[in-house]
């Protein structure tokens, strides 16, 4: 009984995964030709970006899309199911990773290229896109591991003592986190009998009396909390994210923690929408603690990349709180904040890389006077300061506004006040950083190196494009908010997603 093969147009769901995979393989085959590596990588990123934006347009127009591998019937085959949330995050991740690769043209040296920097960046994107586009929870584990091992390779390129130290801390706890994910998945399979997320939505509803669901849900929260850097398991992030090359730091801080947040969102809207046990209460406390401790940690840091690491953690806390309050409005705030955070955090890390190249250091105690060296950099950094603190008119205002108004209308007064307090602390931290780095006169003995035009272009323009996107979202949030609202509503009512998945295939 032969089935006709799925025609090429339906493959749109998996092109964002296949293209970087093939490009990475091409890059490894051409590993002796170091000059070809950036060209191959940038071509791969460009093609993937086109495909992910096309996927976003298709999902916008037609609703959720699904494709089951080998054309097997849906709960039995592995399904790739894309709704607005997955398509939006995959597009943003691809575009941001592409910009970081442009930045890395002048950041990574020949030795790093010889060790496979570009294929590893492509494989990281494969893991990230795979996580966002899959519809099967065990397949999510597989993509998490692909992303993990690519990140292991990237964090260690360069081989300095700091990197090895950071890598030990990062690798062991990430490995532990994904193994906890696997344990929870095994137990969930034992309870529910299926691993397809759409099928789990229906099956878990019939099992609501089963007490083991509370344990499984909490285990998932812990596993994804380790990945997303939530309290109290976030200490690996300030221990490791400031050690690798600046481009690698940027893509890690911008993208990897958001994959953890995405997994939390997907699990607690599709698999456990009622939050068995006290999971949502626990996540509320976790969110509030994460955001406050992240902000306070940022105030205490002297090294710029560690300060940014704590700002990442503080943002994660807000996203977890939005998920834990669990109304369509607060989940929309979480998704909006995720997109905003990807853009802002990546741009901040890229700026810090440029600052380090110009001034030779990233310590606040040794920096100063960069305004006279480059007013443009100071202006861009100021926009980012406003954006990360949540000030109008930039993109940070809108998700915080939606979250706070959603939280107050839910009656969650203490946790929403924590959001406001965190914003104050974050403002102090980043405002002080801007003042110390750019505004104050240079400390004695500091020499600022002016970059040549080619280096300047590849280092500053990616960050400038991200800042442009932040300004655009700040002034015209409706465009992004429409997508985010569609995503949040389709999470609240996944019948279109389930119809696409379980109706696909023979």
């Amino acid at each position: 009984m032969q089935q006709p093969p799925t025609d090429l147009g339906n493959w749109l769901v998996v092109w964002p995964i296949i293209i970087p995979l093939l490009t990475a393989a091409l890059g490894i085959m051409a590993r002796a030709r170091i000059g070809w590596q950036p060209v191959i990588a940038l071509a791969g990123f460009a093609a993937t970006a086109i495909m992910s934006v096309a996927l976003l347009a298709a999902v916008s127009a037609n609703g959720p899309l699904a494709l089951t591998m080998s054309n097997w019937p849906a709960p039995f085959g592995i399904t790739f199911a894309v709704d607005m949330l997955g398509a939006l995050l995959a597009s943003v991740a691809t575009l941001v990773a592409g910009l970081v690769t442009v930045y890395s043209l002048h950041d990574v040296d020949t030795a790093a290229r010889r060790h496979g920097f570009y294929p590893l960046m492509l494989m990281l994107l494969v893991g990230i896109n795979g996580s966002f586009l899959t519809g099967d929870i065990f397949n999510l584990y597989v993509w998490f591991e692909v992303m993990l091992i690519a990140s292991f390779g990237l964090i260690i390129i360069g081989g300095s003592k700091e990197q090895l130290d950071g890598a030990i801390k990062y690798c062991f706890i990430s490995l532990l986190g994904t193994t906890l994910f696997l344990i929870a998945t095994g137990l969930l399979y034992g309870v529910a009998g299926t691993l397809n997320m759409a099928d789990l939505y229906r099956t878990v509803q019939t099992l609501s009396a089963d007490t083991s669901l509370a344990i499984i849900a909490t285990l998932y929260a812990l596993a994804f909390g380790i990945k997303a850097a939530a309290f109290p398991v976030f200490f690996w992030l300030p221990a490791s994210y400031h050690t690798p090359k600046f481009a690698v730091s940027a893509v890690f801080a911008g993208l990897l923690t958001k994959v953890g947040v995405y997994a939390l969102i997907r699990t607690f809207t599709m698999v456990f929408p009622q939050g068995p046990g006290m999971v949502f209460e626990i996540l509320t406390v976790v969110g509030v603690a994460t955001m406050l401790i992240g902000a306070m940690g940022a105030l205490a840091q002297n090294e710029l990349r560690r300060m940014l690491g704590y700002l990442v953690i503080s943002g994660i806390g807000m996203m977890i709180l939005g998920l834990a309050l669990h109304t369509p409005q607060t989940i929309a705030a979480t998704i909006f904040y995720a997109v905003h955070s990807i853009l802002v955090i990546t741009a901040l890390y890229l700026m810090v890389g440029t600052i380090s190249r110009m001034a030779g250091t990233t310590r606040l105690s040794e920096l100063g006077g960069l305004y006279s060296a480059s007013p443009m950099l100071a202006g861009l950094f100021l926009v980012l300061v406003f954006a990360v603190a949540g000030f109008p008119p930039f993109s940070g205002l809108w998700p915080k506004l939606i979250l706070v108004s959603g939280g107050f209308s839910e009656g969650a007064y203490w946790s929403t006040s924590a959001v406001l307090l965190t914003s104050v602390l974050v403002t102090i931290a980043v405002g002080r950083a801007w003042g110390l780095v750019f505004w104050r006169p240079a400390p004695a003995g500091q020499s600022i190196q002016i970059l040549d035009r080619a280096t300047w272009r590849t280092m500053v323009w990616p960050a400038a494009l991200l800042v442009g996107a932040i300004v655009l979202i700040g002034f015209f949030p409706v465009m992004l908010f429409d997508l985010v609202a569609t995503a949040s509503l389709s999470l609240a009512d996944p019948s279109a997603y389930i119809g696409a998945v379980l109706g696909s295939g023979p």
Partner: protein
Amino acid sequence: MVEAAITLVAAALYAGSVYLLLSNSVVRLLLGIALLSNAVNLTIFAAGRVTGEIPPIIPASLKVPAPDIANPLPQALILTAIVIGFSLFAFVLVLTYRSYQALGTDNANEMRVAEPENPARPPVGY
């Protein structure tokens, strides 16, 4: 009965791995990771309900499998988990060796290159 035995073994492996993972020495962390992956694989196996010894193949005379075949899905999950586990373990093993060469210590508490003991405070004024 068999499931109970498998679960007990998995529990013992979990206990051992947690003890090792809480250790200072990175080599013990490695052993903890190895035990943990084995424990997880046994858990998935037990979760799939150890049914029969009949292989999951449809005999030539039937159209559907016999009702009490061995469950193939957990076996597929375990194979995937084994492969992922040992490749990650191989990486972490080499990382440990290389970091021992570079940092000179096996004790995670003494590895303070990335996070120094008393870091400089940020400036309090201009």
